[in-house]
């Protein structure tokens, strides 16, 4: 089968382009937060998970310490471990492919793969989206970082406003139901109450503890919040819910 005729590959490419483009905003915001070009690229190449990368630079931009930034990124990345379990069941990669498959396990590749029913299409979708996003995300991170360096003072260009919008944009698709919305509000309030009391960066970790406790208490969403924050199949047939996987 010609790859360009595969519906999964076509979806994967459009997802890769859309996601890759917002690497522009990550690159620009990262240098605005005070990271240099090489550090920004290291995050996109090695950490390679948009939410966690934004979390890392978001903590640094607020004056937080390296350990707070790393912790926030690590906690936000826990969902990737859950995706890993799903992908492992779905694709059954051989032992030697596991590490590459794991590194490409992100919102976009998982959403593209799980949106398909045919195992071959799932496989094509995963790899096309994973590799496509990886290449374009890193390319546009570089472009964004270079542009950010050339722009100078971030506040003058409203880049701090861009960071706010980016976080809201990452949160938005996950709060369609009442319970996730309640968790979001509680965690935001707890964070703001903690800001004057503890060093920068720590309020975010306190919110994480509260969120985990809410989840443990059964108040959390059963599925919401864990679904990838992207909907590659929104315009075509509806994306299947987790229960369909």
């Amino acid at each position, binding site marked *: 089968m010609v790859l360009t005729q595969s519906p999964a590959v076509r979806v994967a490419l459009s997802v890769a382009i859309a996601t890759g483009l917002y690497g522009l905003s990550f690159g620009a915001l990262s240098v605005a937060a005070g990271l240099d070009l090489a550090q920004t690229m290291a995050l996109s190449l090695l950490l390679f998970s948009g939410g966690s990368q934004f979390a890392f630079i978001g903590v640094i931009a607020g004056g937080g310490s390296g350990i707070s930034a790393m912790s926030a990124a690590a906690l936000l990345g826990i969902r990737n471990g859950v995706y890993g379990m799903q992908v492992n069941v779905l694709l059954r990669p051989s032992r030697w492919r596991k590490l590459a498959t794991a590194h490409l396990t992100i919102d976009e590749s998982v959403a593209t793969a799980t949106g398909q029913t045919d195992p071959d299409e799932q496989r094509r979708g995963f790899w096309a989206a994973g590799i496509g996003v990886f290449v374009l995300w890193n390319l546009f991170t570089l472009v964004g970082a270079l542009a950010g360096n050339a722009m100078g003072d971030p506040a003058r260009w409203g880049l701090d*406003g861009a960071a706010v919008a980016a976080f809201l944009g990452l949160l938005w698709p*996950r709060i369609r139901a009442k319970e996730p919305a309640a968790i979001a509000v509680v965690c935001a309030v707890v964070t703001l109450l903690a*800001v004057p009391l503890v060093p920068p960066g720590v309020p975010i970790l306190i919110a994480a503890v509260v969120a985990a406790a809410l989840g443990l208490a059964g108040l959390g969403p059963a599925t919401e919040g864990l679904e990838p924050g992207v909907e590659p199949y929104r315009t075509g047939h509806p994306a299947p819910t987790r229960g369909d996987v």
Partner: protein
Amino acid sequence: MSLWGWILLAGAVSIATKFLGFLVPAKLLDNPKMLRVAGSLTIGLLAALTAVNTFASGQSLVIDARLAALAAAAVALWLRAPFLAVVAVGALAAGVARLLGAA
């Protein structure tokens, strides 16, 4: 540890987290409690990051041009704008608010 150290460690933790998912038995996926915790963590952290980036300035809370960015981004998201457009709208709103005299 320097910032570089934390960046490399964050990368290593990220890869390890993803890889761990491939090593544990698939049965764990059936544990609703674990899924709930992972889901609410994701939501809680993103909400916290949104709040901090909007209102925190060091250890104080301030209302400045970033609030305009939050409001504009919410409207853009409500209108189903794509992510990159939302980010651009946020930047534009903060920039315009500052032109109009906001801190």
